[in-house]
């Protein structure tokens, strides 16, 4: 059992959970993920690590309630237990001194960007972070990102906070200042990662993205997480989750992510019916 020691609501339907899992905390590195199974009948779902504290033995994850399983997880309270918490999985981010780097987080993608930005800054990089969201209310972890970045840039689709526009506009704004950017990490919704990768490809700036496909075991056993990278099939769980954004076939990845959408709706619907019956 893995206990929720802290819960914080970051925005509407976005929740931070700090989980007591000393073994995982002890080995976790930036860029890695965990597999979580909440109850005996739950799915195994992959979640990227937002933070870890080796002394306290905790690992922090951030969830957005989109499907049934993520919704149930966001409803957990402090003191509740997760049945299974496996990790750290996947390859860690390659951390070294690149020079000046951009860390772009879109929506909840800011969470996995956080430990990467911190590790890159600790390695001597100048870290400029871009936080992008639909509107001001959905900008999360601003203080945490400030603490691990030399500078932060905020963009919102509706202009309610920071620059008006998408993540790519934030990247453009930084490049317009004539800075030489050695590498970019972009993590967020698939469409956002694709846009950033498309934007930087003609500029020749190394761009890494973190794929979050459907997974089952997360240890290379099932191949559900296949991603096409430069015409080569890779398993996101063992070869990734980070890949060269200029080589990822995002269109295929988006289609694969949507494969069980109908079943997700059924599960969510059943859940609502169950809650109504129980008068919740």
């Amino acid at each position, binding site marked *: 059992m893995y206990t929720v020691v802290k819960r914080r609501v970051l925005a509407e339907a976005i929740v931070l959970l700090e989980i007591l899992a000393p073994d995982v905390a002890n080995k976790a590195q930036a860029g890695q993920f965990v597999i979580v199974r909440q109850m005996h009948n739950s799915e195994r779902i992959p979640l990227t690590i937002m933070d870890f504290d080796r002394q306290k033995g905790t690992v922090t994850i951030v969830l957005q309630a989109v499907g049934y399983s993520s919704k149930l997880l966001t409803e957990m309270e402090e003191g509740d237990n997760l049945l299974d918490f496996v*990790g750290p999985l996947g390859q860690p981010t390659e951390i070294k001194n690149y020079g000046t780097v951009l860390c772009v987080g879109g929506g909840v993608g800011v969470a996995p960007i956080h430990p990467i930005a911190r590790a890159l800054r600790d390695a001597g990089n100048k870290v400029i972070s871009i936080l992008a969201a639909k509107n001001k209310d959905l900008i999360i972890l601003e203080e945490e990102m400030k603490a691990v970045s030399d500078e932060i840039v905020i963009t919102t689709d509706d202009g309610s906070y920071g620059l008006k526009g998408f993540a790519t506009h934030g990247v453009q704004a930084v490049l317009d200042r004539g800075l030489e950017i050695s590498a970019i990490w972009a993590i967020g919704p698939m469409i956002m990662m694709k846009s950033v990768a498309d934007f930087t490809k003609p500029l020749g700036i190394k761009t890494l993205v973190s794929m979050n496909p459907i997974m089952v075991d997360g*240890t*290379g*056993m*099932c191949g559900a997480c296949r991603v096409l990278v430069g015409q080569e099939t890779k398993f996101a769980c063992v070869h990734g989750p980070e890949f060269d954004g200029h080589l990822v076939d995002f269109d295929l990845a988006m*289609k694969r992510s949507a494969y069980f959408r109908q*079943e997700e709706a059924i599960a969510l619907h059943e859940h609502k019916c169950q809650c109504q019956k129980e008068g919740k």
Partner: protein
Amino acid sequence: MASKMPRHDMPRQDALARGNNFQEVALGYPLEVAVQEANRCLQCKKPKCVAGCPVGVDIPKFIQKITEREFLEAAQIIKRKNLLPAICGRVCPQESQCEAQCILGVKGEPVAIGRLERFAADYEIAQGCCKPECQAPTGKKVAVIGAGPAGLTCAAELARSGHGVTIYEALHVAGGVLMYGIPEFRLPKAIVQKEINGLKDMGVEIKVNQVVGKVTSVQELLDSGYDAVFIGTGAGLPHFLNIPGENLCGVYSANEFLTRSNLMKAYDFPNHITPIKVGERVAVLGGGNVAMDAARTALRLGAKDVYIIYRRSKTELPARAEEVENAEEEGVKFHLLTFPVEILGNEKGNVKSMVCLRYELGEPDESGRCKPLAIKGSEFEISVDTVVVAVGQGPNPLVTMTTKGLALDKRGTILADKETMATSIPGVYAGGDIVTGAATVIQAMGAGKKAAASINKYLATK
């Protein structure tokens, strides 16, 4: 003469009814039938069947106990050599092992050793398992990586010798392929867990959710006080065909398909939240036991047409004859001498059909089977909604990649001594599919047992 009596059939669920449920197909011998079948055994002075058993169960003796109606004793005799008899009685390929050696098989049909093993084991489980005796604690500690057939057997043998044993399992439940791979209708998961509980009663500690290679490593285990390590991480890496369209939605590896259904119980969706979908037409690529399991699972999940697509002919099917027969009875259709060259999809990226080639058989190849030769210009299209790729598995590299100094062969399997199961690292042993490549449950158990004997010797010198 008892031997003139024909071999007794085992009752099975009706073929039509069972195609719609996940309950066990083979129902086991009723008590009187078991006694009658046991009476067919000639009690050979030099029993060949024992030599055919990878773990050397004293077959004539346990069968004799069944004739004497000493069923619990029969189970105890099996358990001296094999602590997972209810599992082996169900999934061992007895026809090519113990039963293949039975003298009755020369002119007629061999004694149904597997069915009798299952009977004795199930009888014991129903009565409440007796705890096997363990020797006094030695104070030595062994870490076993992987709770599949090899790891469980090795752990049980080591616990019996008085060593402290901890199993590190990557998934959330112990059992390995017995839980994620073999379907409920062939091996009920409750049976697997009961046999594993027997190990826990012997003092074996099982730590789940521990991915060795990530959360810890072989070296760290040795450094943290384990005197020896056994690696039984299996063949968990699915092979694909590398044909166009293989990443379309609706193409599953057999591992994914079976793991969703078996381990995650997707057949009980939405009571269990993991989804699986098959559509109306399912093509399973491959002809082994895993392919049969996937095809029969697809039928039970509601597919109207399920095809086994196999490059060679029926004679070469690597699956057990019994499994092929079960699949045929339930309505699985066999497209033999056929294999796809491309999978086609619709605008959503979902599978819609496969382009296949027809094959003919040529001269035997290095595997001894006739080599399939594609017939030029024979392309044709089969319309399908789901494709399950069941063409084998390779060794999972998570442990081997992170273990410095561990010698591997070019396929990535661990090089271990055939007799001692010792690897290139002192104190580290390996067995099962991670050494042989994908094989059978009982072969893995045999390897686990051999390794335990070597570990025993090794620990005595420490």
